[in-house]
Structures are given as structure tokens and as C-alpha cells.
């Protein structure tokens, strides 16, 4: 088993190390996200102050934690394409990917794992320090990222986050595969980015949506990437709900991997023609 996985592990590790080099981008992104996180929290605070507590779907402290987790883990969201894959599709160098003795979907999934983890590692720690430690020191303790209410919630969050990563990578590969049909143009990806930001809970936590929308959003795959793990962390979902959350996340992961494999198989026949 370890032998069979050796190429994929090597690719994840090499891409991961390479992406860790983009520290300047991470610092720039961090600043944007700090401002964004603060702005979101101030808006929701104003909203909460002007509405009766009875209609508030979750406590403000839970909401603040939810928002900060979204900002800290932004890079884990499947919101962008792999620039290397885009260049390969455009130039036809994708043929080289087929000249390697590995499964192409596995190769692209490995790339996605690195793409979703390396920038997250760079950004999450400083973000958590700011939102969890610095904010209370500055006297804004009600805006802070609070620790999970229980050990069970914390452990549940870590488990659900691992499943979220698997799901996010499956979606990321699908976005990359779409480049084969759009020939590397980002038009569709921009649409997709907006949709993911909204449907995952990054912009508006999903519990704040009206009931009918929540029912629909809950069954889309995007809730599994951010919303469900965050709500376990904040205690909005009980740790006992973990099994259901994991089932939804992994169900979508399996389905989207199957879809991706099928699409890639069809797409690759087109793309090999590029550059005759």
C-alpha cells in the first residue's frame, strides 16, 4: 500500500514545500482577511443588536468564532484554480502528465491536497493568534475566536476538518478539470469563486440564511467544507451530530471524485490534440 502511494505522497510533499515559499502572498492575504473578518463581525454585531435574541439562530460569540475560522482557513476553500494546471492546459504540456506512470486523477488530487494545505498552514496560525489572543488583549473579547466549548467539540472539529479537506480537494480538482473545456480561461472560475464564497458560509454563515435556503444549502457539498465543521467547533451542532456531518462530507467526496474521474477521462482525449 505504501509502495502504491509513494508517487502521490512525493507529489504532495514537493508541491507543499514549493507553495510554502509564497510567504509574501500569505502575508498580503492575511492583512486583507483581518480587515474582512473585522468588518464582517462589526456588521453582524450591529445586526444582532438591532434584532430580538429570540430570532437569532446562534449566539454572537459562536458567530464570531465561525467568522474567524472562515478567515483563518480561507485557503482551504476550493475557490481558485491551480495555476500550473491552467498553464499546462493552455500550452498542451498536459501531455507530459500522461507520460508519467501515475493515475492522472490521483496526480491532480495530490496537487490539490498541497494547494489546499500549504497556504492554509501559512495563514491559519497568525490568524488564530490575532483573533484568539490579540483581540481580547485589545479589549475586544466579544469579537474573539473562542476556544471550542468542549473537548468533544474540538476533537469533532478536527475530524470534520479532515473530511472537509478531502471534499475541498475533490471540488478543486473539478474546477481544474473545467479548464480543459474552457481552455484555461478563468471566466467560469470567477463565477464559481463567488458561488463557493456564498454557499460555503464564508460571506454569510449558513445559519443566518432563511429556513428554506438553509434546507437547500445544507444538501449542497459546499456546506461540508466550512459550515458544518465550524458549527461543530462553535457548539452550534452537537458533537453527537458528527457522524451525520461526516457521512454528508464523505458521501459528497466519493461522488465528486467519481464525477471528476469520469470527466477527466473524457476531457483528456480533447486536450491531447492541443499542440498536435
Amino acid at each position, binding site marked *: 500500500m505504501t509502495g502504491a502511494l509513494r508517487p502521490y505522497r*512525493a507529489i504532495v510533499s*514537493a508541491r507543499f514545500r514549493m507553495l510554502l515559499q509564497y510567504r509574501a502572498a500569505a502575508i498580503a492575504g492575511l492583512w486583507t482577511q483581518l480587515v474582512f473578518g473585522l468588518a464582517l463581525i462589526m456588521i453582524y454585531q450591529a445586526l444582532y443588536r438591532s434584532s430580538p435574541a429570540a430570532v437569532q439562530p446562534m449566539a454572537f460569540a459562536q458567530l464570531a468564532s465561525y467568522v474567524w475560522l472562515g478567515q483563518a482557513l480561507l485557503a482551504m476553500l476550493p475557490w481558485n484554480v491551480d495555476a500550473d494546471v491552467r498553464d499546462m492546459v493552455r500550452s498542451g504540456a498536459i501531455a507530459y502528465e500522461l*507520460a*508519467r506512470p501515475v493515475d492522472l486523477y490521483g496526480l491532480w488530487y495530490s496537487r490539490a491536497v498541497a494547494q489546499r494545505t500549504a497556504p492554509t498552514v501559512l495563514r491559519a496560525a497568525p490568524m488564530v493568534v490575532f483573533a484568539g489572543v490579540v483581540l481580547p488583549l485589545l479589549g475586544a473579547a466579544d469579537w474573539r475566536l473562542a476556544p471550542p466549548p468542549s473537548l468533544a467539540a474540538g476533537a469533532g472539529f478536527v475530524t470534520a476538518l479532515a473530511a472537509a479537506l478531502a471534499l475541498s480537494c475533490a471540488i478543486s480538482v473539478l474546477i481544474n478539470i473545467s479548464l480543459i473545456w474552457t481552455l484555461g480561461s478563468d471566466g467560469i472560475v470567477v463565477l464559481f469563486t463567488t458561488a463557493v464564497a456564498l454557499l460555503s458560509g464564508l460571506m454569510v454563515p449558513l445559519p443566518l440564511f432563511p429556513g428554506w435556503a438553509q434546507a437547500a444549502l445544507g444538501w449542497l457539498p459546499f456546506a461540508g467544507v466550512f459550515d458544518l465543521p465550524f458549527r461543530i467547533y462553535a457548539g452550534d451542532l452537537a458533537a453527537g451530530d458528527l457522524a451525520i456531518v461526516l457521512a454528508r462530507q464523505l458521501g459528497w467526496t466519493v461522488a465528486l471524485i467519481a464525477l471528476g474521474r469520469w470527466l477527466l477521462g473524457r476531457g483528456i482525449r480533447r486536450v491531447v*490534440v492541443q499542440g498536435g
Partner: protein
Amino acid sequence: MPQIVVEQLVKTYQIAERTPGLWGAVRGVVRRRHRAVRALDGVSFAIERGELVGYIGPNGAGKSTTVKALSGILVPDSGRCEVAGRVPWRQRVAHVAEIGVVFGQRTQLWWDLPVIESFELLRDIYRVAPAPYARRRDQMIELLALAPLLDVPVRQLSLGQRMRCDLAAALLHAPEILFLDEPTIGLDAVSKLAVRDFVKQLNRDDGVTVILTTHDMDDIEALCTRVMVIAGGKILSDGPLEALRARVTRERWLTIDLVDAGAAIDDPHATEIRRDGHRVCLAFDPQVVAPAELIRRITGRHAIRDLFVENPPIETIVARLYAAHGEAAGGAA
């Protein structure tokens, strides 16, 4: 049994066509017209273990398509292809583990990684055991003089340095067959010689079968005992370089340096094809007039400083072959 067998290979591409202009673009959204381009039109050949074969043809002739089919990257429409007993596209993963491929216009190294890290990544991707890897790596480093380059990120390499590293990268898993797609494109003279020497040595010492596509006829003359010429998806010629030459033209060239630059050379059996100051180049057919006889006649009439007889360069031969094929194809259509 030849190592590579290709029989009646056919591959047709559907190229989307769009009428020019705005109206064409609008119509293209609704209905695309497709034009079929036959990239391979019944290609057949067989290559024995240890051969070094040049594969040439004009742009769009089907060279890359053939190489892609042989490397399992592309599925042909019909025909048979077996490489070392494997059907490349049916057993792609098993197949590509046993071959090496270099596309001159691209790199298979990781742009941002130091060269040695790319090598280690390829070691893992090809599942090479540590001992054979170390042996092969050291051999490549020595033969291609890579030692000073190993810690340099690939994006900082010159094209010639990169190509040397790419050759090593394609050979770390010790393949028996190597496909080189324009390996000398864009290289300076020194780098070209280094690449040629290395390929020659690899073929001679390790018995690696090499198929080399190129536009550089010096590559062919320096390396290949056998040349296949493809144009319009068909093999036009397959055999030793000299046979190709003999097939296309018997012509030889006589170049003379005249004392008097203005002198007109008038000989019934020689045609002036180029004149550059004192230097005149004449074409003649040795079966019509013996070289010695022609030289005697010309030196009898003109004062001459120097002269030499040569074969037309292979570029000229190939250009004539392509042109003849173009006329034949044009006439048929």
C-alpha cells in the same frame, strides 16, 4: 521480433472552424463547423532494439502525433501499435514506466524546484529503488556535467542547461526506449553538440533505442543511420540517409573560387545555382558528366583559386522531398 511495430496507424482530429468576423463568431456559438484533419494516414514501420532513428517532416506532418501514440498519450482511430509487446494506450501506466520522453519545447522538471529535487521526485514517481537510482543519477551527472546545476532552481537554467537536465530526468528510471521530440530546438552550437554526443553514447553504450524528431538536419547527419520522412500523415521515405539522398536527387555541387568575379560560367552540363562575389556554386549530375571532366573543362577556361565538390545539404534534399510531396498532394486534390 522488432521492439516497436506500427501498422496502418490512423488518427483524425476534428478541428473546430469558425467563419471570420463578428457574424462568424455569433454563428459559431450556435453551430460549429468541424473539419477533419488526418494527422496519421496509415503509418507503418518497425524498429529493432538499439536502433537510432531520425523522424523528420514539415510542421503538422504527424511527427508529434506518432510520438504521442507510441508513448500511450494518444489513442489512434485504427491500426496496430506494439512497443516491447505492449499496446501503449491500453497499458499506459505500465508502458510509460518503461520509456523515456523528452519534449524539447517543454520541461518535465518542476519550475520552482532545484534540479536535484526534481530528480528525487521523479525517482518516487517512477518508484526507482534507492541503489539503482543513486547509480543512474551519478552516471547522468557525470555524462551530462550536471554537478554545478543540481542546486539551481529550474527557472534559472539556460535552455541548454535545462535540456541536459531534462535528458537526465527522462533517463533516471533507465528506460530501454527514448523518444526525443525536437531535443535541440533553440539550443546554441555547444549545447547541440553536447546533446548529440550524449544521445549517441547512450545508444551505443547502453543499447537504448532512440526515436528522434527534429528540424535540424545536422542532428540527423550526426546521429541517425536511418531516417523516416513523414508528410501529410504518410511515410514518404524510410531508410539510410544515403538512400534518401539517392532517391531524391543524384545532383552534386561544384563550388569554385574565381580569380575574376565577373566571369560567366557557361557549361552545357552545369547550372549555376548561387553566386556570391568570387564564389560560384554549380549543380551537375555525375551520371551525365564526370566530376573530373567538368572540373577540367572549367579550369581550362577560367582562372581558379580553389574548388570543391560536395553533396547538396540534407536540408535541400528534404525540402525537395517535401515540395514534391506537396505538389503530388495538391495535384490529387
